[in-house]
């Protein structure tokens, strides 16, 4: 069994683990940023002493990341509160802020927030006033690239805390073909006690699906699908399934969502709506292979397959004519 497959199997069914190659499993988990999640799944299991110690340290690390992430969200909240702007937390920070099942052991890095497009300039100004800074003196072109073509401000970093914040106005680049309904994402977001918001559960699943396929080359995909699995298990119901289908159509992300559901079911046994997901496709096998392309030394495998997905991800992000221009300007520097 490859290390990638062992990892998926361990997460999906921890009871099935029988004297695995722990070094390989731990290295693969680290490489896929899933060691914290694995540690949570193995809580209470009888394990070799050394494994217990390593996983206890991983839990300590997860708890620390959670603390830092929630604090970063809180400081952003303090900076933006006077504006009266809806601030929607995204990804791992959102899971932690709402104490979702998906938060268990979830590693989290930068803060990602979603705000209305027309308020972005004000939001940036407020963050700059509160100690965030632009990353580098963005030369004209990179800055333009971010503002016009990407779906976020150029990243800001806090000068004292050294943590990054990414401010988005939608969940996919405006240049990519599916056009999610950003207004609806915000309008239907859920308020937390602090006043910060998270996406509606169906939108969280769709965001994760979009992020997995349209926003990247599947790197980090096992973690992304694990998020989706945890979300589906927490929220699955007839009403939720109906909502998921409706929102997937609204955001023009039905295909990505369907594929994400199929892969989550394939890898993690997630409860899915076959009506929305459809039957398994031949291409699903390629995606699965790409996701599992990790060996017991933590190395990525299947270089050609990975390269194919890398090119595809850029293709999806920017239509070819723009992509050519972007690459040409980059090459000229």
């Amino acid at each position: 069994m490859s290390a990638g497959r062992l990892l998926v199997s361990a997460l999906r069914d921890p009871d099935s683990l029988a004297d695995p190659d722990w070094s390989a499993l731990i290295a693969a988990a680290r490489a896929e940023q899933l060691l914290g999640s694995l540690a949570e799944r193995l809580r209470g299991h009888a394990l070799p002493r050394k494994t217990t110690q390593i996983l206890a340290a991983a839990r300590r690390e997860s708890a620390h990341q959670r603390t830092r992430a929630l604090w970063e969200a809180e400081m952003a909240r303090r900076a933006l509160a006077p504006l009266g702007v809806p601030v929607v937390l995204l990804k791992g920070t959102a899971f932690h802020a709402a104490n979702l099942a998906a938060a268990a052991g979830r590693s989290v890095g930068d803060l990602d927030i979603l705000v209305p497009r027309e308020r972005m300039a004000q939001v940036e100004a407020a963050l700059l006033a509160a100690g965030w800074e632009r990353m580098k003196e963005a030369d004209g072109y990179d800055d333009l690239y971010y503002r016009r073509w990407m779906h976020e401000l150029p990243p800001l970093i806090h000068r004292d805390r050294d943590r990054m914040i990414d401010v988005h106005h939608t969940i996919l680049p405006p240049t990519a073909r599916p056009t999610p309904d950003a207004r609806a994402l915000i309008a239907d977001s859920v308020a937390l006690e602090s006043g910060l918001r998270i996406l509606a559960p169906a939108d969280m699943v769709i965001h994760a699906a979009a992020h997995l396929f349209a926003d990247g080359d599947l790197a980090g995909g096992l973690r992304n699908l694990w998020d989706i699995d945890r979300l589906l298990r927490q929220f699955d119901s007839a009403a939720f399934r109906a909502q998921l289908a409706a929102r997937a159509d609204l955001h023009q992300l039905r295909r990505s969502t369907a594929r994400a559901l199929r892969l989550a079911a394939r890898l993690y046994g997630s409860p899915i709506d076959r009506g929305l997901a459809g039957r398994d496709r031949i291409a699903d096998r390629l995606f699965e292979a790409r996701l599992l392309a990790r060996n017991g030394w933590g190395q990525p495998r299947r270089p050609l397959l990975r390269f194919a997905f890398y090119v595809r991800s850029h293709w999806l992000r920017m239509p070819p004519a723009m992509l050519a221009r972007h690459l040409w300007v980059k090459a000229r520097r």
Partner: protein
Amino acid sequence: MKHSLTLRIGPVGFRIGSAWRGPIDALAALYEGYPAPEDGICDFTVRLEPEKPWRRWLRPSVAIQGDYVLPDAAPMALAHGLLAAEMGMNLQMALGQKSWLLLHAASVEKDGRALILTGESGAGKSTLAALLGERGWRLMGDEFALLDPESGALHPFPRAVSLKNGAIRVMEGEVDAARFGPRLEGTPKGAIRHLRPNAQALARMDVPASPALILFPRFGEATAARAVGPAEIFMRLTQASTNYVALGQAGFDALTRLVATPAAAIDYPDTASAVDLVETLWAEAA
């Protein structure tokens, strides 16, 4: 990976994989006598890989990969492969160790009590610790001291001592040639030679000790010593720790307890004075 080795240093198990055989052979020779990881389970993985596939053979260039990496690290020449492996292991500790509070310090033990030597790189702590290790003290480590956040005990991490430039000759005069690795020239820090800790250090690598004295040594000045207060110790140790922040409240509690330990800043013009000063201050702290 084509060639590989596992070994345990104190409580930490490592796997080192390499596309080339040389570094693994050198590592095996230097770490002769070290135990295997507990139950074969490795805390960390280090990989020595070609920077680009063709650099495996053409002007071989070693990139240090593993669980934790430095994104912009320059690759190294194959001749420095052993050094790359060492740096890789250090990196895993510095970025990945979350079970113990890491102090960037050398440490030696006598009668179950530990002397911690900490301060800037190049201050001579490694050499001083290595020397003390041959003069009746047990070497616990030259680079990292592991503080147990629960118990406050210091755990050994007796990796091979990294000696640079002048320090190499000092220790060559003290110690059997068989304990040395190859002399590596032209590294970013000049000449480096690794020294395996002695049999006593290896035999007792699982035996912790209670911190009893903290010294901040500084080489090159006339012999002097001044007491250092807890606030200053706290500040200097947090600066010297790569994982203090990551350990959260446990780290804070462990460090605030540790700073009650007697501490002094010492200056010394040569190693003989250093050893005398250390012995004097140790006797006073008892």
